[in-house]
């Protein structure tokens, strides 16, 4: 393999294009650093700079317009190898499209160097303005009237405290500057301000780059972070199986079911409906039943209704479809509103409903009780105990044990619940 970065003296750019200078100076910077091209991954963006792949002895990755910094970021994570240099070639157009990707790679302080070929317009597509076009600069889309300022990419990236940021005007030999950037640790960015002779020069005859920068409040310069660092991203191949953190449920209780049993539990968000449903499903499994549990709630999970649908079944494979309901438990007005249809349609089951609520229209048996007496947060679990005691589908003991074994079990006022339940006797 050729030890030089480039495999040709003839690059594919128009005569006088600043891209020549960037490619050549990058090559020299490589030589100065003694980098083997095969230790380098060149990620090119769409645009004239992106035509360099073919002429590069490095690994090359040529992706989409504006996304090369994100693609390079992925490679940096993926390789996670400080010996490999990742260089991003991108234009000002691509940097406009993918500005957030550059900022994100900088924020994460990934080990890579972004070299922006800033000729202040989209060259390949016909000289249109980009987000990097300064006010007084003419393009094929905006002439003599541009009042919109350009992004100062160096300033933006500097705000993220990266190790190395530099702006240079493309002239002569700037390989030393590129060498510093490529050789630095962590994220580095060089904005090379240059001219596209085919559009920029023609539309802005006699334009001086220093003056242009000055007028747009920018300057050449280097901004280093006092303490060079890079963020380490590591792979952990020994994470425990998710099954290890999921409790295996031993069958230790009896149930009293001959066919599947469908329940809806409903109340307000934050009142423990979903966790009560989980306790019930677990206790049912511990009683030798199969279970199917799903939740219904608005997108904002912290307000409004919270409904759980649970099916338990003596069959090995629990059915998915509620079918005819056996029990509906309603502990608040939110839960009632959300389930009126089910309540109305229920024929033979039992509706357990909080005492505070008006009794809805239904042909089911209704049991009204003060489920909120132990506190709103315990309404659902208390109602569940109450319903289990009444229907006898599983034992109270199964539910109590399930709760005690759960990590938040200690927060459930089991004694109070038991006290209330025994009062009924």
């Amino acid at each position, binding site marked *: *393999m050729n030890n030089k970065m480039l495999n040709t003296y003839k690059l594919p750019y128009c005569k006088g294009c600043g891209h020549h200078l960037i490619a050549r100076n990058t090559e020299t910077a490589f030589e100065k650093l003694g980098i083997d*091209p*095969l230790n380098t*991954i060149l990620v090119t963006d769409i645009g004239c700079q992106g*035509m360099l*792949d073919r002429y590069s002895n490095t*690994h*090359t*990755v*040529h*992706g*989409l317009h504006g*996304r090369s910094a*994100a*693609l390079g*970021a*992925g*490679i*940096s*994570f*993926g*390789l996670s*190898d400080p010996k*490999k240099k990742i260089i991003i070639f991108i234009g000002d157009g691509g940097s406009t499209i993918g500005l*957030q*990707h550059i900022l994100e790679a900088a924020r994460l302080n990934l080990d890579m160097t972004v070299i922006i070929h800033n000729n202040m317009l989209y060259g390949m597509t016909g000289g249109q303005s980009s987000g990097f076009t300064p006010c007084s600069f003419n393009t094929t889309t905006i002439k003599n009237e541009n009042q919109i300022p350009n992004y100062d990419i160096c300033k933006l990236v500097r705000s993220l405290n990266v190790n190395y940021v530099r702006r240079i005007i493309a002239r002569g030999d700037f390989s030393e500057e590129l060498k510093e950037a490529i050789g630095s640790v962590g994220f580095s960015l060089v904005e090379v301000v240059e001219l596209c002779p085919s559009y920029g020069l023609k539309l802005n005859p006699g334009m001086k780059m220093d003056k242009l920068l000055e007028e747009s409040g920018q300057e050449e310069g280097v901004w280093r972070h006092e303490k060079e660092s890079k963020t380490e*991203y*590591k*792979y*952990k*191949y020994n*994470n425990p*199986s*998710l*099954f290890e953190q*999921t*409790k*295996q*449920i031993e*069958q230790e*209780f*009896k149930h009293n079911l001959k066919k599947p049993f469908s329940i809806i539990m409903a109340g307000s968000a934050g009142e423990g409906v979903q966790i009560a449903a*989980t306790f019930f*499903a*677990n206790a*049912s*499994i511990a009683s030798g*039943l*199969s279970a*199917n*549990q*799903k939740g*219904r*709630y*608005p*997108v904002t999970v912290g307000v409004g209704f919270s409904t759980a649908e649970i099916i338990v079944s003596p069959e090995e494979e*629990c*059915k*998915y*479809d509620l079918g005819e309901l056996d029990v509906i438990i309603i502990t608040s007005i939110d839960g009632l509103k959300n389930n009126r249809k089910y309540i109305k349609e229920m024929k033979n089951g039992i509706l357990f409903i909080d005492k505070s609520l008006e009794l809805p229209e239904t042909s089911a048996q209704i049991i009204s009780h003060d489920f909120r007496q132990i506190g709103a947060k315990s309404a659902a679990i208390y109602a569940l105990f109450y319903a289990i005691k009444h229907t006898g589908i599983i034992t109270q003991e199964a539910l109590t044990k399930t709760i005690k074994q759960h990590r938040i079990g200690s927060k459930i006022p089991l004694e109070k619940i038991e006290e209330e339940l025994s009062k009924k006797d």
Partner: protein
Amino acid sequence: MTKTNKKVILTNGSLLIIEALAKAGSDAFIGYPITPANHLYYYAMQRFPFALPAQDEITTLQWMSGFSVAGKLPVTATSFPGFALMVESINMAYMMELPMVIILVQRLGPSTGTATCGAQGDILTLRGLISGGYPVPTLTISDFDDCWNLSEKAASMAIKLRTPVILLTSKEMVMTSRSFDINNLAEINSIERNHYNKEETYQPYKPLENGVPSFLPVGHSKHQVRFNASTHNELGLLQHSTKEAMANTSRLQSKIKDNLSDFAYYELDEMENADKIILSFGISSIAAREATIKLRESGIKVSLLIVKTLLPILPKYYEILEKYKHVIIAEENLDGQYSKILYGEKVPENIININSIGKMINARQIIEEVSKI
């Protein structure tokens, strides 16, 4: 109580999918919050060797592509609003021939639709995902066993065919908890990756006998490696529309179609002398299975085909369906997307579509329609 050799847990499809993908050797999960794919993100953050939140969906796919270019197997999970933003980058990964798994959890659309309502409305989008009409392998999950088995197949397919693979599911499958015996699950081993190991110059897009090019990650110390999203030749060098480049581009379809029989997943439950067959897939399979049992109980002869390799269509499906006088297709969308892919916009008279939006199809619906025939 009797002791059994069961190991029952209360779990959901998300956990099974993530555990299976991790066991299959996935290296990285790139996530971001989107309902109803959040559980997958949550589990992957604990389980995957490398898991990171990305700033958005375009970044997600670009980072994944970077991981893949570096020889890792990346995974993400999303739903349509996010998936839509990934499309250009999926085209890129497809063109670069990058292994990755994209879990698409369908929810009710159009647009942001209803985040917490399931659907099967993205089938036509998947069929037309790649500019030029090239197929992206899509496997779809019909139950918890599939959450486990097909996840591994998706990872294996991605690596063996060097391509992004879509693992398609729906809200109800990944968010519903069920009792499940994990002792019956097949063992999953980390999928082996056979990288190019010859002395001769590596050509990144030179196909092996099966049409799939051998893989090398960037950064290799002996071989130069190129990846290219634009039209390119076997060397990975950009070309306009040369014969060589067009051969490479059309290979993107043939490498998938020619190897499809290695990844032909479906469940066929045929009944002797039946002249009707129910076809379903994904979340609607639940109703289709139940309906089939009940119809048979009531004396109606009916067969059942549960499609798992959804796209591209297996030629075998037509072979099966052609044997039947009536085909009943159950899918949870407006007017039968898979049916349109199979039979076109004007569905033949012997095809009966059973559809639903905003609500899962239930067995009763299917039984009613089949009983009418």
